[in-house]
């Protein structure tokens, strides 16, 4: 992981692959935009995207990751929104959002290269995450559609649940080798 994987790179092999247990896969080709603004600006963002604004620690999405036009919007703080979209659509999306929100105070920042993302899926995902994340990951406490910032061991992460046994994790890119190693260690500890 010395070199940043380019979006054009062919599918990378899983970082962890134990059928019937868990798989860890890198996420490539994703654009990330942070949006912060007054409520009126948020309303215009939602209208421009065609998405309802998520409540705090929740996500909404349209389409599936990798599809053209896919959008995922999540709220990590009272006025902090993160928009995920295909990297190739970044420029047009920035232009469209800037135009839609021009009349209201807001910031829109491209943070695509700040994080590296991973998919963790399989029956053991919650147990593996519990090895380093202090959150309660029971589906009653952390339902599908919840998205939050937290910790995995010493690394700050963004964590959201797409399905009962499918999580997405992101971390600052310099933390990524540490995160992958700790997830691997957590998986080994489970046998």
């Amino acid at each position, binding site marked *: 992981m010395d070199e940043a994987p380019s979006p054009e790179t062919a599918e990378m092999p899983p970082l962890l692959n134990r059928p019937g247990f868990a798989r860890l896969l890198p996420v490539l080709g994703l654009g990330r935009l942070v949006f912060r603004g007054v409520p009126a600006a948020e309303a215009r963002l939602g209208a421009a995207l065609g998405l309802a604004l998520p409540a*705090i*620690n929740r996500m909404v999405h349209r389409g599936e990751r990798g599809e053209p036009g896919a959008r995922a919007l999540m709220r*990590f703080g009272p006025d*902090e929104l993160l928009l995920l979209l295909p990297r190739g659509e970044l420029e047009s999306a920035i232009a469209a959002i800037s135009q839609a929100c021009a009349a209201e105070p807001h910031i829109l920042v491209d943070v695509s290269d700040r994080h590296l993302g991973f998919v963790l899926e399989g029956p053991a995902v919650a147990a593996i995450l519990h090895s380093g994340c*202090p959150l309660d990951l029971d589906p009653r406490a952390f339902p599908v559609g919840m998205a939050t*910032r937290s910790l995995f061991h010493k690394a700050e992460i963004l964590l959201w649940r797409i399905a009962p046994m499918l999580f997405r994790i992101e971390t600052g890119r310099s933390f990524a080798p540490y995160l992958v190693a700790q997830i691997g260690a957590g998986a080994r500890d489970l046998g």
Partner: protein
Amino acid sequence: MLLIRCPFCRMERPELEFRHAGAAHRLRPADPAAVSDRDWGEFLHDRDNIRGITAERWHHVHGCGRFFNALRDTVSDVFLATYEPGAPRPDVPGAGQ
């Protein structure tokens, strides 16, 4: 581990996500130049160090990123209440000074 209720996330979150951020309800003088050295020194440095219920600022640094206020019992380490900054200190039974 303690669970601390974040008033912005509106849920209990693990203690590891939080950072202590000093005493609550200390207002910075609007015009520091007009404050005597003694009062300014008090503002900067004098703290009550209460044995019992104290009002503190906390920071949900690995969560929503917001600062908030909390009433905590320094003897038992129990959080009695958390509330948004700017709100008055809540009345909690047994929290009288």
